[in-house]
């Protein structure tokens, strides 16, 4: 099985570690973490990423801006992006989908819901 790398972008440490511990149950995947959009942009050129999971509401570069960048860069044209946000930010989720997000998750979600979505991209 060829290696699969997921980049998790969220400004909350607890949220990231919850996502990571859930994703680890998938088996041999590499999980990278970034605490904000900036760090994500620093990591992306240096590592091959197969899936991007990003929060929307983050300081500085938000999830939508990150998504917009990913979609406009031919290098990442095929990269699946899953956006994560809360019910209250429904509008932002819709915007994300129109910008080309592959999937979305509404917080709070069950670990199984996350895994189910991620498995589709493995």
């Amino acid at each position, binding site marked *: 099985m060829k290696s699969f790398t997921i980049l998790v972008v969220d*400004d*909350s*440490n*607890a*949220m990231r*570690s*919850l996502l990571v*511990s*859930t994703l*680890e*149950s998938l088996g041999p995947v590499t999980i*990278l*973490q*970034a*605490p904000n*959009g*900036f*760090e994500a*942009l*620093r*990591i992306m*050129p*240096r*590592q091959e990423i197969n899936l991007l999971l990003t929060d*929307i*509401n983050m*300081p*500085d*570069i*938000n999830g*939508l*801006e*990150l*998504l*917009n*960048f990913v979609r*406009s*860069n*031919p*290098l990442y044209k095929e990269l699946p992006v899953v956006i994560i946000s*809360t019910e*209250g*930010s429904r*509008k*932002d989720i819709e*915007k994300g989908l*129109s*910008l080309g997000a592959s999937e979305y998750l509404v*917080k*709070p*979600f*069950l*670990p*199984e819901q996350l895994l189910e979505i991620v498995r589709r991209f493995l």
Partner: protein
Amino acid sequence: MSAQSPPAMDAARDFLAEAEEVVEELSSRLGELSDMAEQGAWDPDLLNAIFRDAHSLKGLAGMFGFAVVSEVAHHTESLLDWLRMGKISLTRQVLEILFNSAELLATLMRSTLDGTLEQHREAVDAHAGAIAACMAPAGSSSPVSPLQKLGLSAQITGSLTDYEEHRLKENLGKGRFIHVVHASFELLTFDEGLNDLTSRLKGCGEVISTLPSVGENMETHIDFDLLAGSDLDREQLAVVLDGIAVDITFSGGGSVPETPSVPESVKETPPTELLPETVGSVAVFPLSSDQEVAPVFSGSDEPLSAKSMSRTVRVDIGKLDELMNIVGELVLAHSSIAALANRMRAEGFSRMAIDLGKAAKGLDRRLGDLQKGVMDIRMIPVGQLYEKMSRIVRKISREQGKKIDLKLFGAETELDKLIVEDIADPLMHIIRNAIDHGIEAPEQRLAAGKNERGVVRISSYQKGNHVVIEVEDDGDGINVEKIKKIALEKRLVSDISGLTDKEALELIFLPGFSTADTITDVSGRGVGMDVVRNNIAAVSGMVDIETWPGRGSRFTIVLPITLAIIKALIVFCAGRTYAVPITSVIESLILSPADIRTVEGREVISLREHTLPIVRLENFFRIERTGICPGDQYVVVVGVAEKRLGLVVDDLLGQQDIVIKPLGGAFKALRGISGAADLGDQRTILVLDSGSIISELMRSGGG
């Protein structure tokens, strides 16, 4: 919910730590916002940061199954959302609700630990009600979008969040110019350039959105489009951005506002005491093109690692305690080696004994370093307490209509984290008292010829092995006669004729004492000064009061720097061994029975022309002395703050490092004991708490 499954357990711990941090941050930002609002203008970035705090807390709590926390955060978030979107204005009433929200969240966070969340149902519902009342139904005002007229590319408007769109409209509404600045940075070092650009733009307006994009050299470069609002037109902006390679690819707006900057709905908000109309105003920073840029991200010359971004580690204090215990045991093990070396030398193994002695010395030095290293990790600056205290002062002065300046000194003074935590409540209570009973109402102050703003001053400094925290107020002082009267009325004392003012002041620390004519919401909440003193004594601290009629009072708290490992004098008395923390020992001397005099039924000796009360340990602990009477006895003079006492013991066994371990709950009530310590030879001894022995003897009065 299934968040409790094993892999999520670590994450749940992280949640508590992080959520606590978020609540702290939210509160301190609210304080900032309140200060700014009082000055008349607040920064929309700050409000947005507060919104984000509530937002993350909601998401976090929801994910980890704390529905109640999530619910409160949700309501708070909605209110903040209306605020940042300009749907309601920042009134005193709204601020009040926000402060209450932060406090409720903090309370709930504490309750998640002991599972009593549901007990706060009533408060949670009341909170929701208050917010619902604040958010009157919005007149569905959808102003004609000025955005189309502006003619920004869909590329840019397409990735604005709801909030960013609102900021854009606000800037337009105020007649600002809207610019899009395009920049291209090297992939590896883009953060430096981007930070520089961002801070220059913020210097002359607001950065609404930072949009990464793809340029011509996407292998080596990353491009950004920054959407900014500014009073400067294109030419002026070009001057500010001089020296960095950017293009201003779009400029628009800058006309007389056509739509009102504040939507109609604002005017329908209930007529409460309005702060100066501040919705959407921006704190404009002085323009300076050579502004220093604070580096926000770690320098790019650091070796790249995608795994760890943070340079700090959050550690459970329990793990540090464990480590400290091990260090303590190592120190003990070392003592036995050193003792062995001494014995060997005495018994004639001289060469080996000397070598062993040397090795032990080396070990001692390293152990010292290790001990200091572990200690340093536990130390945190007292300044962390100050943030909490300034919130409380703000809250109380708002509630009571008193004007108070809080002055803080020595925030960098370091103290053991556990002590800092244990001292927060007593300190808070002392401050509440100072404001409640000490500082007068503004009219009263003016009448007394004082500034109408009262001053509460908290200063911390290190003094030897102790940290001193002083709380001073410039209020009316404590009325000693009133205290005596109340103590008599409440039958706390039987005779006040012989009491000095200083002794009378001590009466307020007696259980059952409260001078408040009416119990106010503030000081009346919960505890009396006796609890304050006990809480401070529980961390081996002492509290002392001074007061000057008409000019104010000062509470002085003296604390040990750490409780974890200390030097102690080991003493022997009536067949038992005790440890006396060296920090409280002033001197020790041989007791000659001829020196003992009796004053009012208590034994005292004369020490350098001062009378020193003495107490025999066996009497204090009511131990029957069996066997022969000891020969020479010793007096260990202990003192905490200004008080002195001589402990009479049979023998002094020397100094030693000890690790104090708390006694179980059953022994909590024991006066005079602060814990137990292991001597390293399988013997466990009790550690004396000089502070509580002194206050216990003072309490028992004239004997």
